[in-house]
C-alpha cells in the first residue's frame, strides 16, 4: 500500500501546483489580493506532498520492495544501503522525482524569502514556478511513474548500474539538479518582469542572489561530475565533451553571463532586455539538457534508457515553457528602455564583451553537441563531433575572455581613461608574462606555444584578481576599509578561473600516459616514478568479485605508495568495471588501471602521470566559494526588509 501513497501524494501535489499556476496569476492580473495570497500556501503544500512521495520511494528502496518496478530495476538486496538511497535518483523516473522535489524546494525558498517583494510580483513569480512544476509533475505521472508495480514481484532486483555505485554519484546529481532547477528562479523573475512590463535595479538585486546560488550548485555539480568521470571511468580524462556534460556546461556558461549582465542592470539600469533574455536562455538550456539526456536523441555514455514518447513529452514541455517565455519576450522586450549609456572604456564595456564571448562559447558548445543531430536530420550522414573540435573552437572565445577578465575587474563604471587602466595593470601583466614563460621551463623543462599562452593567461587571472587585496594590504596598513563581500566574491571567483586555467594547461601539456603489458615483477618508469607490478589476487566485494593488482610506486628508490587497482565483475549485471587506483597529490596524480588479462599472469596496464590535475577542481571550488561569499553580502538581505515596487524605486546609491 505504501507506494500507492507516494503516487497519491504526487497527484495531490499536481492539484496544488495547478492552483499555484493559475489562481495567483489571475489574481495578479486583476489585482485581487485574496487570490494572490494563495500562492504561498500552495507552494508549501506542494513541497510537503512531493517530499512525501520522495520519502515513500526512498523507503521502497530501503526495504527492498521489488514489487515496485523501478526498485526492482535499480536495486538489489546486496546493494549497500547508501547506494540504495542514491539509487532513488539512479535512473530516469526517480531522478525526475528528485528534479521535482528540488523545484518544490526552490519554490518554497522563493515563497518564504519573497515577503519583501511587491505582492503582485511575488504572485507572478510563484505562479510561473507553479507552471513549470505542473509540466514536470504531468510528465512524471503520465509517462514515468516511479511507483508502478510489477506482478509477480521478482525475488531480487536487477541492481544499480555499477558505474553509479560510487560516492561521487551519490551527491553529483542532487548538486547538479540544484543548479539546473535553481535557474528556474531567475527565469520566473524574468517572465514576471516581462508580464509587468517594468524592471528596476531592485529587480536585478532580487534576481542576483538566486542566480548566484543556482550557479554555485551548478559549478560544484559539474566539478563533481568531472571528478567522478576522472576516477571512475578510468580513462584519466576529466572532461570528454560528451553531450550530457555539455548539457550541464551550457546552462553554466549562460548563468555566468547572466550574473555579469545582472551586475550591469543593477548598477547602471542598462542591458535590461538582454538580461531578461539571458535569464530565459539559462533555464531553457537547463531544460534542453533534460531533454537531450532523456529523449535518446543523442548518443552519450550518460544517457538514460530512452523512450520516444517521453522525448516528445519533454519537447512539448520545453516548447511550452521556453517557447512561451521567448514569445512573451518578443512582444514585450522593447518596453525595457535602458537608462543612460557608457563609454568604450568602462566596466560596462568589459562586461558587454564578457557576455558576447560567453554566449559565443555557449553557441560553440551547442553547435558541436547538436551537429550530429542537424546533420542526420538533413540527411548528411552521422558525423561525430569530439574533443578536436571543442578544444579548439572553445578556446577562440575563451582566450580573449581570459585576457579581458583581468582588465574588466579593474575598470570603473561609466568611463575610465585607458592610460589609468594600463598603469594599474602594468605590474600584474608584466609578472604574468615573466611567470608564464619561466614557470613551465623551471618546473617541467620546456613549453610549447599554447602551454606558454595558457600559463600566462592563468597567472594573469590569478595576479589581477589578487591585485586589489594585495595593494590594500601593502599601502594601507592602518586598518584599511574592508572590501565589500560582493567584491571578495568576484575576486575569488576570478582567482578560481585562473587556478582552473593553470590546471587545465599543465594537465594537457605534461601528462604522461602509457599502455603496456606486464608480468609480476616488471618495472616501469613513468614521469620520474618507478612502478613495480607485484602481482594480482582475488578480492570479494559485497556485490562484486574482483581481481586486485598490487603496484609499488617508488621515487629515487623510496617507497611513495602502494596502488591497488581492481577489475570488478558485478554479480547481478555481470558487467566488468575498471577501478583505477589513484595516488592523489597537489603536484601530481599517479594512476594505474588494470586492462585485460593476457594469460600466464600477464596483464595489460595503463599507467598515467597527471601533474596539477587537482587545480582543475580546486579552481572550480574556489569559484563556488566566491559565489558563496558574494551571496553573504549584507546588501541582499537589507533589500528584503525595504518594501519596494519594481520600476518605482529610485536607484539606491552604491558602495564600492
Amino acid at each position: 500500500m505504501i507506494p500507492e501513497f507516494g503516487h497519491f501524494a504526487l497527484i495531490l501535489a499536481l492539484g496544488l501546483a495547478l492552483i499555484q499556476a493559475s489562481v495567483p496569476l489571475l489574481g495578479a492580473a486583476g489585482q485581487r489580493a485574496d487570490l494572490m495570497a494563495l500562492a504561498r500556501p500552495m507552494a508549501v503544500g506542494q513541497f510537503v506532498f512531493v517530499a512525501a512521495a520522495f520519502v515513500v520511494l526512498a523507503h521502497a528502496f530501503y526495504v527492498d520492495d521489488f514489487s515496485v518496478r523501478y526498485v526492482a530495476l535499480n536495486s538489489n538486496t546486496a546493494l549497500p544501503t547508501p547506494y540504495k538511497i542514491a539509487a532513488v535518483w539512479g535512473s530516469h523516473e526517480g531522478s525526475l522525482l528528485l528534479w521535482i522535489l528540488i523545484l518544490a524546494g526552490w519554490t518554497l525558498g522563493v515563497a518564504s524569502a519573497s515577503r519583501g517583494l511587491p505582492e503582485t510580483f511575488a504572485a507572478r513569480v510563484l505562479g510561473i514556478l507553479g507552471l513549470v512544476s505542473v509540466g514536470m509533475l504531468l510528465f512524471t505521472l503520465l509517462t514515468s511513474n516511479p511507483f508502478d508495480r510489477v506482478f509477480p514481484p521478482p525475488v531480487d532486483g536487477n541492481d544499480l548500474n555499477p558505474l553509479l555505485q560510487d560516492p561521487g554519484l551519490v551527491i553529483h546529481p542532487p548538486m547538479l539538479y540544484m543548479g539546473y532547477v535553481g535557474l528556474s528562479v531567475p527565469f520566473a523573475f524574468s517572465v514576471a518582469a516581462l508580464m509587468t512590463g517594468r524592471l528596476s535595479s531592485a529587480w536585478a538585486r532580487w534576481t542576483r542572489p538566486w542566480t548566484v546560488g543556482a550557479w554555485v550548485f551548478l559549478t560544484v555539480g559539474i566539478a563533481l561530475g568531472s571528478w567522478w568521470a576522472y576516477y571512475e571511468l578510468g580513462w584519466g580524462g576529466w572532461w570528454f565533451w560528451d553531450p550530457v556534460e555539455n548539457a550541464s556546461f551550457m546552462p553554466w556558461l549562460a548563468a555566468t553571463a547572466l550574473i555579469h549582465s545582472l551586475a550591469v542592470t543593477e548598477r547602471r539600469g542598462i542591458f535590461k532586455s538582454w538580461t531578461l533574455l539571458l535569464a530565459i536562455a539559462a533555464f531553457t538550456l537547463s531544460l534542453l539538457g533534460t531533454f537531450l539526456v532523456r529523449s535518446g536523441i543523442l548518443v552519450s555514455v550518460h544517457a538514460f534508457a530512452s523512450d520516444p514518447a517521453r522525448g516528445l513529452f519533454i519537447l512539448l514541455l520545453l516548447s511550452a515553457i521556453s517557447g512561451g517565455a521567448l514569445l512573451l519576450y518578443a512582444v514585450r522586450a522593447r518596453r525595457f528602455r535602458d537608462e543612460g549609456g557608457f563609454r568604450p572604456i568602462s566596466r560596462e564595456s568589459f562586461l558587454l564583451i564578457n557576455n558576447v564571448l560567453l554566449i559565443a562559447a555557449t553557441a560553440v558548445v551547442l553547435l558541436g553537441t547538436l551537429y550530429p543531430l542537424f546533420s542526420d536530420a538533413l540527411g548528411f550522414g552521422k558525423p561525430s563531433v569530439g574533443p578536436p573540435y571543442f578544444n579548439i573552437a572553445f578556446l577562440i572565445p575563451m582566450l580573449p575572455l581570459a585576457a579581458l577578465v583581468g582588465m574588466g575587474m579593474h575598470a570603473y563604471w561609466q568611463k575610465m581613461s585607458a592610460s589609468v587602466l594600463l598603469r594599474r595593470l602594468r605590474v600584474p601583466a608584466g609578472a604574468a608574462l615573466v611567470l608564464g614563460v619561466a614557470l613551465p621551463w623551471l618546473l617541467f623543462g620546456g613549453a610549447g606555444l599554447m602551454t606558454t599562452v595558457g600559463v600566462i593567461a592563468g597567472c594573469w587571472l590569478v595576479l589581477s584578481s589578487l591585485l586589489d587585496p594585495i595593494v590594500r594590504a601593502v599601502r594601507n596598513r592602518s586598518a584599511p576599509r574592508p572590501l565589500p563581500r560582493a567584491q571578495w566574491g568576484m575576486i575569488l571567483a576570478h582567482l578560481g578561473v585562473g587556478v582552473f586555467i593553470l590546471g587545465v594547461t599543465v594537465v594537457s601539456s605534461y601528462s604522461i600516459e602509457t599502455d603496456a603489458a606486464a608480468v609480476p615483477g616488471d618495472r616501469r618508469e613513468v614521469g620520474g616514478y618507478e612502478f613495480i607490478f607485484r602481482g594480482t589476487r582475488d578480492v570479494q566485494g559485497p556485490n562484486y568479485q574482483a581481481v586486485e593488482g598490487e603496484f609499488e610506486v617508488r621515487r629515487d628508490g623510496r617507497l611513495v605508495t602502494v596502488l591497488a587497482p581492481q577489475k570488478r565483475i558485478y554479480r547481478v549485471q555481470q558487467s566488468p568495471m575498471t577501478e583505477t587506483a589513484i595516488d592523489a597529490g597537489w603536484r601530481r596524480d599517479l594512476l594505474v588501471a588494470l586492462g585485460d588479462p593476457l594469460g600466464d599472469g600477464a596483464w595489460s596496464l595503463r599507467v598515467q602521470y597527471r601533474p596539477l590535475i587537482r587545480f582543475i577542481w580546486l579552481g572550480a571550488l574556489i569559484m563556488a566559494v566566491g559565489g558563496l561569499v558574494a551571496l553573504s553580502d549584507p546588501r541582499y538581505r537589507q533589500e528584503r526588509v525595504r518594501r519596494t515596487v519594481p520600476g518605482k524605486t529610485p536607484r539606491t546609491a552604491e558602495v564600492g
Partner: protein
Amino acid sequence: MWRYLVPVSIFAVLAAFFYRGLSLNPGYVPSPLLGKPAPEFELPRLKDPAATMGSRDLDGQVALLNVWATWCVGCRQEHGFLVDLAESGGIPIYGLNWKDDRQTALNWLTDLGDPYVASAFDELGEVAIDWGVYGAPETFLLARDGTVLHKHIAPLDEEIWARDFLPRIAEQCGSLPCPLETGE
C-alpha cells in the same frame, strides 16, 4: 521590433530539429567498410586448428560472414534462422567465432546445428577489430570481389533478411543461389 523575434525564431528552428530527431536513431552507425573491400584475414578453423580459413575461402562467391560467440544471447536467438537459411542452400554462410572457448563453441554447434561452411576461430578478437566488430551478432554480406555490401548488427530474422539482404543479393546475381564466379 523584429530583433526581439530572433530568440524565439532560433528556438523554433531548434525545436523543429528536435522533433525530427525523435524519430531518428543516433545509435545506428553505418559500417565504414560498406562498398569497400573487406579486410584480408586468415585464422585457424574452429573445427580443425591445423587448417586455416580466410579471405581466400570467401573469394569469388556472394557469401555471409556471421560473427558469433557462445556467450552471446542474440547469437542463440538468430541461430535457428541461420540453420534454416543454410539448409535452403541459397548462400554460403561463414562464421567468425569471436573471443570464445573452442570446446564450448564446438558443443554449441553439435547441440544447435552448424549452419556454417566453416568457422574461423578468432580467440583474441584481432580480426574482429579489423572488421569493426563491436558486438555480436553481426552479419556481413560480401560480393564476389570481396566488397562489403551490407552489415547487419543484431540478430537476423526473416523480416530483416527479406528487407535488407535479399534485394542486395538480387542486384548481384538475380536470384538465389548465386552462381559461383567462373572463368578462373
